[in-house]
């Protein structure tokens, strides 16, 4: 795997292929199949919303892209490189390699290291040699996005509130130059005002030629602010609407 890849999407200005190209993806855990023959294309610079109910496969889609489901099959191309393929066990075995291709996952809930401080947490996100060398300015950049974290740098993450944890989780994802950001339910479990603030911060991130997929249950938070909204229903993507039309388009949900 090329070591220069994580910088490439930001720098190049020439027209390039899709950031993410999923074909015929099925994934699940044990005997359960959660995602059924899913196709999805995400282009550079795109901010994509995925909406759907609990248990319809939004998180599983993200886990499948990161290679963390129980099993999966089908093609997933990240920056034109195949990271999917068939796999019957060994969740997480290749995740670190996929992540190093330029994937930043900001998971929902508690995918977080309780005992590490906020600062160590941000450091842990800087996993490329270049990001590790530049970690000080990068941390400053994230503190500019999330000012409340400045006072909490030495506090173990286990003692933070839900909103602060979400900020740490997103900040961690921003420590490297990713080509694709996967944000899983950024407003989940947060007070509406804080959830909105987190969403504002996500919208303020300059994508350049990278892309972002946001899974969310609250369509109102996404409408008018992302480029496309897809509905997810029992493991397949249904309907597609540009965001201005999202509220009028009849979706097959």
């Amino acid at each position, binding site marked *: 795997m090329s070591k220069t890849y994580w910088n490439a999407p930001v720098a190049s200005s020439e027209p390039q292929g899709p950031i993410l190209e999923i074909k015929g993806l099925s994934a699940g855990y044990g005997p359960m199949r959660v995602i059924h023959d899913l196709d999805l294309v995400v282009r550079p610079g795109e901010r994509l919303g995925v909406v759907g109910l609990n248990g319809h496969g939004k998180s599983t889609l993200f886990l499948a892209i990161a290679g963390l489901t129980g099993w999966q099959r089908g093609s997933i191309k990240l920056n034109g490189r195949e990271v999917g393929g068939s796999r019957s066990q060994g969740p*997480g075995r290749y995740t670190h390699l996929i992540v190093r291709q330029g994937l930043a996952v900001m998971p929902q809930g508690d995918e977080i*290291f309780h005992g590490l401080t906020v600062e160590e947490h941000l450091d842990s996100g800087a996993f490329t040699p270049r990001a590790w060398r530049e970690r000080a300015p990068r941390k400053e950049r994230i503190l500019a996005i999330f000012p409340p974290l400045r006072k909490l740098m030495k506090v173990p993450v286990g003692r933070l509130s839900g909103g602060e944890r979400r900020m740490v989780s997103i900040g961690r994802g921003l420590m490297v130059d990713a080509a694709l950001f996967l944000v899983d339910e950024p407003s989940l479990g947060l007070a509406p005002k804080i959830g909105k603030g987190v969403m504002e911060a996500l919208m303020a991130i300059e994508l350049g030629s990278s892309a972002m997929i946001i899974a969310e249950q609250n369509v109102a938070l996404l409408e008018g602010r992302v480029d496309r909204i897809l509905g997810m229903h029992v493991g397949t993507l249904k309907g597609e609407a540009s965001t201005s039309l999202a509220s009028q388009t009849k979706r097959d949900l």
Partner: protein
Amino acid sequence: MDLGFVIVSAVTLACIYGTLAIGISITWSSLGLINMAYGLTFATAGYGAWLVGDQLQAIDAISDTTWIVGPIVILAGILTGAACGVVICAVTFIPIHDKPNFTVRGLIASLAVSLIGTQVLLQVFGPRAKSLPPLFGDWELPIGNVVITADKGGAMISSIVLLALALRWMKSSRRGLEIRAMMMNPHAASLVGIGVRRTGFYVMALTGALAGLASVLLSQTYYISPFSGLTPLIKGLSVALLGGLGSVNGAIVAAVILGTNEALTSALLGGQYALITQFLLIIIVLLFRPRGIAGILDKAREA
């Protein structure tokens, strides 16, 4: 009873057991492996140090200069331990770490490696016990009416210094951050680009090196034999259990408690009762704190 002697023995034992227990604890919490081959690492490192020490003894020019021989032999023990840890990782961790029920499989695999390895040591080196040259010279440091002998003082200082270095490395470096991240949440660790297998090798090399250090230090008092790893394994495991598996601080506290207990028992009742009082103490503590001393403070990997 000579109180000073008891204190010195207690601290020495605490240093050595603490080193072992921290190794076991780190392996468990970051890899999810209870490393039953830790005793084998211990014995192998002893033999590695002995081989090097034997070669050095043959060179007349330096065979009497402890300040040259000592560090080289210690280093040889540490390196052999690290190498042995890497081999154990390649055999017991890499092939099965993502298969179902790894905890039990890993336990059995490392136990098997331990049994095979012990027999190999027996085959190669024979059943006769070996002893290392004195590593810390021949001095005595009287503090009040307490006399610290060279082997005990050297063991204390070198284990504390090297442990502090190892823990500092874990606090400050990227690799150490990776190991600590994996100790807390292996699933999330892969999401920040931490490869489980590669980190596994780092962890096993580090803990193997700790076992090697403990082995060299303990062999100042005891002999090296193919089966000499068994008692340290039991002691290390019980210290790690008492401290709360996965907690470094807990392991240090538990090592002090069990070291004191062992020294006191030897002085008051006789050495043959040491294991009995030790396990009684562990049972009593675990009755009140089932996860060990620090098991609740540091949220370790769920068993």
